[in-house]
């Protein structure tokens, strides 16, 4: 599933990010690497969502959220 399909207050683990390399590197530099746990805070809108990873909240545009593959796992 993609991050955009996730539910509020659920934690997911990042499987892969399939987006242009520059954006992928930027996300990784921010700490969104493979295996990172990401908690969705607000995915009510059709577009952007807010999520938290590595202790920081981020707003992620829809295209980014659509291209992050995640799986539902219990994350610490």
């Amino acid at each position, binding site marked *: 599933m993609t991050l955009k399909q996730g539910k509020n207050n659920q934690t997911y683990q990042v499987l892969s990010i399939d987006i242009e390399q520059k954006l992928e590197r930027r996300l*990784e530099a*921010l700490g969104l690497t493979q295996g990172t746990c990401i908690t969705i805070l607000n995915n009510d809108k059709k577009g952007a969502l807010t999520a938290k990873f590595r202790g920081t909240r981020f*707003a992620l545009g829809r295209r980014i959220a659509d291209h992050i593959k995640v799986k539902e796992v219990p994350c610490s």
Partner: protein
Amino acid sequence: MKHTINVGFIGNPNCGKTTLFNAYTGANLKVANWPGVTVEKKEGQTTYEGETFKLIDLPGIYSLSSYTMEETVSRQCILSDEVDVIVNVVDASCLERNLYLTLQLIELGKPVVLALNMMDIVEERGMEIDLHRLPEMLGIPAIPVSARKKTGLSILMHAVAHHKINRRQSPLIHHHPGLQSSHVHNHHSEYAMVYEDDIEDRIDSIITVLNKKYPELPNKRWHAIKLLEKDPDITRRYPLETDAIADRSYEKDIINQKYNFIEEIISEILVNKAEKEASTDKIDHYLTSRWLGLPIFLVIMALVFFLTFTVGDWLKGYFEIGLEKFSSFVAGRLTAMHTDPMLSSLILDGIIAGVGGILTFLPNIFILFLALAVLEDSGYMARVAFVMDDIMSHLGLSGRAFLPLLLGFGCTVPALMASRTLEHSKDRFKTILVTPFMSCSARLPIYVLFSSMFFGRNAMLVCYFLYLLGIAAAIATAYILSKIDGSRADHALLMELPEYKSPNAHTIAIYVWEKVMDYLSRAGTVIFIASVIMWVILNFGPAGYVTDISQSFGSLIGKFAAPLLKPAGLGYWQIVVALIAGIAAKEVVVSSCSVLFSIQNITSPSGMDSMVAALSSLGFGAANGLALMVFCLLYVPCTASIATMHRELGSAKKTFFIILYQLAVAWVMSVIVYHIALIF
């Protein structure tokens, strides 16, 4: 002469770096741009135990790659001689992400001192950081500070002073349980960040090649890592046949392994990880909610403008009284000294009326920037980008473009500069095209003057309408453009939402001080010169010095151009001259009017009354006034904005197109508004 220590302050955005920097330097800052780019550079000084420290505030960045201008600038500055010691400011309450930049900085090879900011928040949350273990793992000193409470400041400078002399890193003690390495070197005693064998082997191989080709190159390990990442800047500067060693970019691996090490650090040093940070989430529940987010945002904006007008106007009254007294005092002295009437006229009608008129708007501008600073410092500004992202997407703009547009309400120049955060040049062009439609604070004096002259108690409503009209023009332009070029929204918003905090008085004071000083220095230079030029145009004609304005150069120009503006109800040469003068800086329209109609203290009730009388004798009524305000809102931005636009776009053709477009929009809109207003 004592040697000064150059200290570079660097850190993630929202880590409190600027607050810490300000705690050392106060308002005594030197603000300039980095050479060649429009990234702001701040410098200040502090002394500790007789040593002088020159502090440089580097841009807030998340990483040291060279993807953005800010990152490139910071990296170049740190590598140059401009920086002796790096102070890496980190938000201790979110170390995990902040330490990524730290690891990159340590690799650069210059002395790094870690300033653990926001330790008070760490304590509040019931967390503890092992301050003994952290330096052991990183090999650099870690000093707990609180920028807001100003604690730990001397200790930090003490560490900086010592670390400059003592370049050797602190001992590194790593355990790395379960990690078996077969790499030939044990780097764990030398470097904080040690990669997996595969990467370390490749680094060693590149260093061998570097040793042969660039023997003088300092810190070969860092260059090797950058070459392995295929960093565009370093590969260009040090071309090397490394394809056999680095068959691809290893950047992803390097980032991942850095984060793995960070996780190891966090697991060792962060004790008692209590999750007690719900307040931000609770606030966000409302402020970023699907239904409430936008209305709340609009209410906040309305509140900002309410404050700017009511409180600002109240303060403005006192400024005007002061100015009136000053003007009559000067007039008295000039008469007493039997000054030449021409010089008296220059001083009273040109300079005092022009510059002084602008100074009376200081309270409005002060409050506007105060409000913007509070919104920025509290953490709300970032939410705006999220709340607006969907709406902006419909216009083919990213949510991030909202920030420049929002800043446009303050001043078009920094707003245009902020468009640089957009990645695609198409996005940037569109944002630069529409940003000037956002009514900047310099246009406020025009609205305040004309709306209170013609609309009395409804003045505030009219002003709000103008702001909305500007937004509408921007939206329409962006929408039409996105239809023409078929550009789809990028939907690549990526923005940190910092924790909400009560705004810091010191930070806000310095922010507002800078803006106000900027406004004043403009009033002192551009507007001063514009006032004098205006005075010359209006007091000199083909026959030399004239006392009758209708014989002046100004009236000739105005009379020539007036028919063009007749359909908008603006076919008066005085108005045309004021509009031309307004290109120097928009607020000059007001001072020009005061000069053109020779009314001193135009913003006072009596001044306005005589202005209304002067205008109505020309047949210029409320509808004309409204059309004038609309024209001022939309026509060519000030010279400073045009210059910035040209610099940001790097194209005279595009800049010229934007100017023509804005003139056309201003003309069409003011014609429409004028004719609608005539009906009522």
